[in-house]
Every structure is written in C-alpha cells, then in structure tokens.
C-alpha cells in the first residue's frame, strides 16, 4: 500500500526547522535557555530517527499517550507518530500533501486528520519505515483503528496495548499485564532484553518530571502569567517524546527556575496581560505562529489547559517500575477526557478555572474529533455557571483547509472584545 507520490523525508525537514529555530533563539538579546534546550532535544530526537538506518537502532513507532519509558529502558528508539505529524504541520506547513496521500488510500475526510496524514506519510514514504508499530486505544477509537492500517501500509509487526477506561485495582492489574505482554513482544522482535534496573531509573526520572510539571502548572497561575501564551505545547511534547529522559528533566528544571524568577519579578509573558484564558483541546498546529502573535498583540495568555497540564495526584515508585508506568497513565491530564466525563471531571475544570483566574475559555473544536466536539455543551454549561465566556472555534488540528487564519483572527478578536466589554 503505497501512494503514487513519494514525499521528501519529513524528518529531515523537521530537523532543518529545529536548526533554524535554534539560530533564531541564539540571535535574540535575551534567549530563553529552556527554549534552547527544547529545540536541542527535538533536534537530537529526530537526528537519531533520521540516522537509525545507519546506526541500526530499533525503531518503534507509537501513538499518543504511550508509555515510552519502556522503550527507553530497552534502548529502543521511539517515534511518536502524532507529534511528528503535528511537527510537520507546525514547521513545514505541508500537511495537505500528506492528507492527499491519505485520501489516495481511501481515508475519508471524516476520519481524524492526524491519522489520515500519518497513513499518507507512511504510504508516501515521508516517514521512514519503523521496525514495529505500537498503538493503543488511548485516547480514541481513531487511534485504536489507526495501528492496524499502519501495520498494513508499512508491513511492520505491531502490538495493540489495550488500555482500561477506569483506574480500579483489577483494571490497573490488567494494564500491568498488557505492559508485560508488550515488553515480551518488543523483546521477541528487537532481540533486546528489558533492563529492569534501567526502567527503575527511568521511572524515578519520570516521577521527578511529573513533579516539575505540577510546579510549572502552579507557577503559570501567577498574575501575570510568566509562561509564553501557547507555551503549554512545549510541555506536552516533553512528556510525549522524552518521558524519563534526563535531558527532559534538565529542560523542566531550567523552565521551572526561569518561571520562578519571572514570578518573583512580577514579569509576565506578554507585555500587558489583559486576558487569561483556558485552552480546551489542541489549537491548529499550522497557526501556532499566528496564535503566538495575536496573543502578544492582545495580551492574551493561555494559563490553564485542564486536559493537558493538570496532572492527577500520586507518586511513582521506582521499586515497582511496571506498576508505576501503569499508574502514570492514569495520572495523565488527558485521562479526564477518557471515559465518562462525570461531575468530578467537570468539577476539576471549574476548579482549574477558579484557581487560574481565567477571563474566558477557547474551545478548539477539531471537526475531525467527534469525541471532543461532543463535550462542547458540557464544558460551556460548567463555565457559563461561573459567568466565564467560551469561544468555540471550529477548526482542524493539522488541516489548513478547514479554517483560515483570517477566520480565526476575526473570531478571536470578537471574543477579546466580548471579554473587554464585560
């Protein structure tokens, strides 16, 4: 199953973009050290992937919210597929070509665009062929189905990690069993053995990272908020790509220090903070530059993203590494949108709005994500009760043909006016 069009290597292009970003950061009068570390990490991650055919690294392509700690502990090179798709949209503005390649495979526009694009990317060889495909039902059934198709396209063996919906004792035990099965699968196909001591070290590192993410989240609640308006995407990438990696801890420690210092000095991320926002779901990746600019222009900062940055309670225990990996998956902020959105989950959103002192919320309604769009009314009602206005922006996370920059600008400006006028 290949596309009629062969695309240039996407990873090579992402790498070039990272190098360019580093140059731009270096040229700034006061470069943010954590930002520099971030792009270095990204660069190193994609360099290893690019060189994998030469170095003989075993590459496991995996879907989002996957326990990459296990891969790092086995010295297996992870390739986060959705993030790579987002990077393509963010840096290359060339996602339309991958969607076209996906359409050639018969994937309809109703299917989640990152998954259509991923299929297109593999079939047009814009992404290198991995050694195995790993996928799960986290966080939707598009993801659950995607892996089978990717196995067919790439001809790779694959493993489906069946993730339970709720955190009960039997379900946690079931997940641990699933993780064990996956380790056996990886051992069989890679010829590498799981290093349990190494996994314990990775878990200890992850535990520290989760703590730092919580601290950063708290620091972002300061008025004015010290972190860049759309900076939370960096935090997502850190956990998605580098969970348990020491360089990620260094990044988070550096960022934490920078934010602490900014809060101490009362320094906000935008010159004049006017609107504190809650972001619900993912903004369009191809508009990140624009969103950053308009945020600066209007003094609008995303200060909380309950589905991405509010980590659940609990600590990880390196003496129980596999269990810890399972626990972590239940602590993820994204778990709030997995399973029933009950009063507790909705209450947490209200609490997050209160603590972060938000003026409004922006709901990025990804037209290809029926699961999230079904929640618009629920969240709107919760926030309406608190007299917090909600802007619902119909868009697509990677497909630029759904909503233009001009449309988004017009709606955001209306929303800023609405908040200002209250």
């Amino acid at each position, binding site marked *: 199953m290949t596309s009629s069009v062969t695309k240039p290597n996407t990873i090579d292009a992402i790498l070039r973009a990272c190098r360019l970003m580093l140059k731009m950061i270096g040229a700034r009068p006061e470069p943010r050290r954590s930002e520099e570390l971030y792009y270095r990490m990204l660069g190193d991650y994609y360099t290893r992937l690019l060189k994998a055919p030469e170095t003989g690294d075993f590459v496991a392509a995996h879907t989002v919210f996957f326990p990459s700690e296990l891969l790092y502990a086995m010295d297996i090179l992870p390739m986060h597929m959705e993030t790579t798709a987002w990077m393509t949209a963010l840096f290359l503005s060339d996602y339309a070509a991958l969607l076209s390649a996906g359409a050639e495979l018969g994937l309809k526009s109703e299917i989640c665009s990152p998954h259509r694009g991923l299929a297109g990317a593999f079939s047009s060889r814009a992404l290198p062929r991995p050694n195995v495909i790993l996928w799960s039902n986290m966080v939707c059934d598009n993801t659950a189905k995607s892996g089978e198709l990717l196995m067919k396209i790439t001809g790779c063996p694959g493993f489906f990690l069946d993730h339970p919906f709720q955190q009960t004792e039997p379900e946690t035990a079931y997940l641990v069993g699933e993780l064990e099965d996956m380790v056996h699968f990886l051992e069989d196909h890679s010829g590498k053995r799981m290093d349990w001591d190494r996994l314990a070290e990775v878990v200890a590192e992850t535990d520290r990272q989760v703590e730092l993410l919580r601290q950063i989240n708290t620091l972002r609640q300061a008025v004015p908020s010290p972190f860049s308006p759309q900076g939370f995407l960096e935090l997502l990438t850190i956990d998605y790509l580098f969970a348990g990696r020491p360089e990620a801890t260094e990044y988070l420690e550096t960022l934490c220090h920078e934010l602490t210092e900014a809060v101490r000095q009362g320094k906000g991320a935008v010159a004049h903070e006017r609107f504190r926002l809650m972001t619900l779901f993912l903004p369009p990746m191809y508009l990140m530059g624009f969103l950053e600019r308009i945020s600066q222009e209007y003094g609008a900062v995303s200060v909380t993203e309950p589905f991405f940055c509010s980590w659940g309670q609990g600590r990880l225990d390196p003496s129980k590494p596999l269990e810890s990996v399972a626990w972590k998956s239940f602590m993820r902020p994204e778990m709030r949108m997995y399973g029933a959105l009950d009063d507790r989950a909705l209450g947490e959103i209200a609490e997050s709005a209160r603590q972060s002192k938000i003026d409004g919320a922006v709901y990025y309604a990804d037209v290809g994500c029926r699961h999230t769009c079904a929640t618009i009314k629920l969240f709107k009602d919760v926030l309406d009760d608190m007299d917090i206005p909600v802007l619902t922006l119909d868009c697509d996370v990677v497909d630029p043909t759904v909503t233009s920059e001009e449309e988004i600008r017009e709606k955001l400006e*209306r929303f800023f*006016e*609405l908040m200002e*006028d*209250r």
Partner: protein
Amino acid sequence: MKALGIDVGSLTTKAVLLQDGQVLSSSVVLSSDTADLSARSAAEQALHRVGLGLDDEVYVTTTGAGGRSVSFRHQQKAITTCLARGICHLFPSARMAIDMGAESMTIIKVNDRGRLCDWANQDKCAAGTGVFLQQMAKLLQVPLEEMAALSLQARARADISATCAVFAESEVISHVHRVPPTPKEEIAAGIFLSVAHRVMALCKRIGIEKEVAVTGGVALNSGLVSILQEEMGFDLLVPEAPQGVAALGAAIVARESIEGGTG
C-alpha cells in the same frame, strides 16, 4: 465631536451619525468593489444631510465584513459588539438578536447591562442569508419584495431543505417544474420556513432567551419574520430600520470613545 458608525456589509454599507445620543442622520448605499469607497460614500451621504463632511470633527467607528479596510476610521469593532450596543439602545429589554445579513447570519446574546455575552454565527453556507433569498426569488420569477406578501397567502408550505443552499435550490426547481407545479406562495412559505429552521438551530446553540429582536436587511421581509415568530412561539422585536442596527451600534461605540476620552 459627532459619532459616526459605519457598517460595511457585503451587499450594502450603512452609516449612522449620532449627537448627544440622538440619530442626526443615516444612509444606506450599495457596497462597491472596495470597502473604503463604500464607507466613504455612505459616510459622505449621512454627513452631507446635516451639512457636514469628513473633514469636520467626526469620530468614525467601523464594523462589518469590510470595516477593517476603511482608511479613515478611528476605530474598528466586531459586528457582535456593535449589534449588542445597537439593539440594546433600541430595545433595552432584548436579550437576544438575530442578525440576518446578505451573506451571513449572526445570533447574539446580551446581558441586562446591554453587554454581549455570547454569539453564534454561520458564514460557511448561503442558506438562510439575503443572497439565498434573492436567488430563490429569481427561481420563482417573483421580485424579492413581493415574496413576503406571496408567502402570507399560502395555505400550505412546500418542503424545502434547511441544511444546504444548493439542495434547497434544486428542491425549489423541482417544485416549480412538477406537474402540477407547487403553488408559488407555498414554495415561498416553504423557503422562509427552511430559513426559520436554520435560524432556530443556530439560536439553540447558545440558548434562546426572550426578548428576541431581528436585525439585518433580511428582517425587512415580513413573510419570513412572520414564520420565524410562529416557529419561535412568541413575537419578535423588529426595528424600524433593521439593516442599520450594527451601524447604530458602531456610532454608539464611537460616542463612548469620545466620552471616554479616547476619541
């Protein structure tokens, strides 16, 4: 200083001149190729009527599809903000307004202080807009102005799609050409009903709250307003000049800026 509000719409451009909270004059012109020319023409007409010109002391606030492109504006505001100001000035009891323009439909909700609190709009499909009605009138070979009276004579309503302008068009063609053809008054009433269904769906997105006003050029169509009232189940507030409400709101914003010292 006088306050001038200009709403640059896709079909017409409206201007309202205010002084001390009173409308001094207003104008409506057909929009030309450029927003700047349309706005200038509407502004000059409104100002000329009271012996003024753009060189006089006038604070200009623009809104609408082309509001941003007006070179002589002092300020540009979103249509939603201006509609809220305009409708609350005319009807302080209104909590909701349905603005039906030439190419878009906007629903706004306002609070008891006359401030905008929510909105919903549709600008992706022509169904339910002024240009859609123009096209339907053409298909029926009836002047648009007569469609309202025609629809009020209907004893039944033809079944017309509310979801898509293209589907609606082919359904109207099929009603016109069937044997015997569906009476024109029933088709006209069916078209208005389809628009009313579309309006209702959009209103429900933000929740219907009484009292409800209708604005925009389409609100001049009494046949459509009558069916919309029937669907809503209560009377709607219709301003004397519904197409000028956003321009009036822009003028009120201009006045606020003058009073607030920013003008």
